């Protein structure tokens, strides 16, 4: 006889084991799925998970994908720690891409040393602005942050599409909805000769460490944690919820905006309609997989980036539809939430028949 019993204390083992268990279960699910569509599960898993790390080029590409995922996930981790349900990293990323691109195009062929920093700053500020509107609506009118941030994802997307069809379209681009290529002065330098790993990836890792430092060492970080886990206590202690909400949301918006501008000034080099294959949404899963810990997010972002890479490779090598990646992500989040249940509960086995 098996039944569920509440734990007296949350299991610290399960807190760490839960994401690993969720990954394992997702892989088991994957095997069943691939068998069902007539593909070899071992080969598919190899292509999905091992091949992305098999050579230096692939590893480089993996890190290129990790950068924006991590930047968004670090900001989201802080938001979720503060109990602010920001689902808007995607929109903030797109706003950053748009604002940054506009600035990069404004610099044109200029060789100014300020071109790149100002472009990045424009991206950051655009991301912050995109986060600021839902934050203001929440604090002023008590609107639901989840809904407004999702809405702003779509507004951001269509604004970007409008821009590449209109004011930012390359006049010499034969009518394609793309901007002109950016000049070298506004492109992010790559870190290594042979790969496309650019400065934005370094920004991402640095931001994770900064966020970790703020959260665990500073009084501000402590206030964020209190605000997130127990709002009445934060009020009682006299922490300003408004101030904390603004800081956390703007920080997340800035990082997502930086992710966006780093994509356009980094690997892409121009503004295109599909800047992001849903990095801002996947970052939600990354944040949870990393246990809302900025350093955990690094590992989780690597895993998620491998999955993105693997999805591309699986499509090329085995003809597996790329939608498999989204499905894997969804299943992963599903198993993660299911496994998290066992942090506070456990299975109890007993021989007694219940009456």
């Amino acid at each position, binding site marked *: 006889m098996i039944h569920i019993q509440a734990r007296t204390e949350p299991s610290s083992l399960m807190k760490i084991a839960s994401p690993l268990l969720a990954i394992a279960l997702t892989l088991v699910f994957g095997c069943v799925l691939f068998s069902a569509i007539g593909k070899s599960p071992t080969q598919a898993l190899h292509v999905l998970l091992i091949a992305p790390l098999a050579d230096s080029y692939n590893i480089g590409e993996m890190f290129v994908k990790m950068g924006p995922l991590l930047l968004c996930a670090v900001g989201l981790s802080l938001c979720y720690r503060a109990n602010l349900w920001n689902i808007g990293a995607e929109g903030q990323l797109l706003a950053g891409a748009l604002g940054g691109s506009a600035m990069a195009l404004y610099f044109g062929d200029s060789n100014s040393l300020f071109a790149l920093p100002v472009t990045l700053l424009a991206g950051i500020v655009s991301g912050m602005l995109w986060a600021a509107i839902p934050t203001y609506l929440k604090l002023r009118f008590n609107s639901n942050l989840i809904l407004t941030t999702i809405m702003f994802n779509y507004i951001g997307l269509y604004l970007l599409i409008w821009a590449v069809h209109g004011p930012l379209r390359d006049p010499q681009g034969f009518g394609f909805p793309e901007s002109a290529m950016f000049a070298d002065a506004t492109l992010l330098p790559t870190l290594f000769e042979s790969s496309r790993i650019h400065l934005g990836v370094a920004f991402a890792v640095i931001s994770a460490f900064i966020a970790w430092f703020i959260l665990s060492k500073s009084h501000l970080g402590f206030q964020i944690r209190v605000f997130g886990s127990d709002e009445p*206590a934060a009020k009682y*202690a006299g922490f300003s919820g408004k101030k904390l909400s603004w800081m956390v949301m703007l920080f997340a918006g800035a990082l997502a905006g930086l992710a966006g501008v780093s994509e356009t000034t980094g690997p892409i080099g121009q503004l295109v309609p599909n800047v992001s294959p849903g990095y801002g949404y996947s970052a939600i899963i990354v944040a949870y997989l990393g246990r809302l810990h900025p350093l955990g997010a690094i590992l989780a972002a690597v895993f998620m980036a491998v999955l993105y890479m693997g999805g591309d490779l699986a499509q090329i090598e085995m003809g597996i539809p790329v939608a498999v990646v989204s499905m894997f992500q969804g299943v992963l989040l599903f198993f993660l939430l299911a496994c998290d249940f066992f942090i506070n509960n456990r299975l109890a086995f007993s021989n007694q028949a219940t009456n």
Partner: protein
Amino acid sequence: MKKYNLVSRLELTNITKQYPGCLANDNVSLTLMPGEIHALLGENGAGKSTLVKTIYGVVAPDKGDIIWNGKEVSIKSPSVARDLGIGMVFQHFSLFETLTVSQNIELCLSKAQLNEIGDLGERITKLSEEYGLNVKPSRYVHSLSIGERQRVEIMRCLVQSVKLLILDEPTSVLTPQEVSGLFDVLRTLSNEGCSILFISHKLHEVTEICHKATILRGGKVVDTCIPQDETPASIAKMMVGDLAEQDAGYAKKEGTVSIFNIEDLSLPAKQPFGTALKNLSFELKSGEILGIAGVAGNGQDELMAIISGEDERTVNNSISLDGADISHLHAGERRKLGMAYVPEERLGRGAVPDMSLTENTLLTHSEGFIKNGLVDWPSIKDYTSKLIAKYKVKCHGEFSEAKSLSGGNLQKFIMGREIGQNPKVLICAHPTWGVDVGAALAIHQALLELRDKGAAILLISEDIDELFLLADRMAAVCDGYLSPVVKTENTNIDQIGQWMAGTFIGNASVSNKQETTA
């Protein structure tokens, strides 16, 4: 109590209930005769709640038998208990505020019972007269005082013709006059043969009304007694074991300089069923304890929130500290000026449940522990260990999560944390509510020590005995009005009790909340 030479109403034998990590009931046996008023006593965590929940079918015991009117029964759910004739009034009422009394009672009756009763309103009126409950079936619950709501709960049990009524700390929310009204009802019930199981922390009530008492400690029955033959002090001794000294007879002090002032404070209610504050004025002097009595929900929470700054609405020039207006300052800024608070809600407001005691120290005590915006964790850890030792907080260590502490120990920790900041003004709400005798004693002494050091203390409490014990001056709140403030030695329980019921408000706008009890 009439003597019945009948079978016992309820007999529990060797009831045992094991929770993960805690043996809540350990071979508990208890016998209740028809018409007996039986007190169940014990400190927090002694196993009283588990035992009554077992009787009411909420908790299934691991071992042991329940014999009801001479027959062994298995009570699998509260509805089985109600069918047997067992009724229970919980500490927190389960009434719908937007429904009438009669609708609320109807909700818990089965179709068969309703058919049997016929006209429910008539039945309620009849029972109400019979037992002096004074409950009108057509009234909406939100318009009832706490005492009246409790009587609705009792009525709900009576309608189902109970043979055993379980009351969990029924008097903690009542004015003294309401308490005596309740006791009259209980005596009538007892004379009719209804048994009553009565959980209380207030020992003088137990000696006043109960025929027998069973004392639990650590899940075991440690003693039984006839309360009439005992004194509150001797019963307290049975409850906590070796209680070194009784909590009594502290010297009263007179405050020195006026430090904290509330002047003509009026504030509309924030929530639909909240209480508006009406023209409150009082001053608080250094070196005194000002006690504010009142039944819960008469404006205490609202007063506390506006004083602490948690209620962010500004009330111009009506709150001042050291002669300077502070009504525009945020909660954090007020703390920096030397104000500290012990809120009613310990877990979830006074302390963050999932954080360690070290982190919970930092929650309000950051002075000296922050350098350049960074937290000096080692120093706070040291300081927290000292706090734990000084106030004898039972826990594994400074790393223990706040939620792992019992209510009394957490309260000692919070008191210690707030007192440790050497506040000029301490606002303290219900400091010993639900706290056992030993911890209450420690808390009382800590408060008096702080007063003697020159702090001004505002003590908001529902426990009128505690107020008389500690307060140097006293007042009462009712429906958002504050009574005159008087020296404790110049007043008595009767007067404060009447003020709690609102007699001081005069003839102006007396809402139905002030209706005094039967």
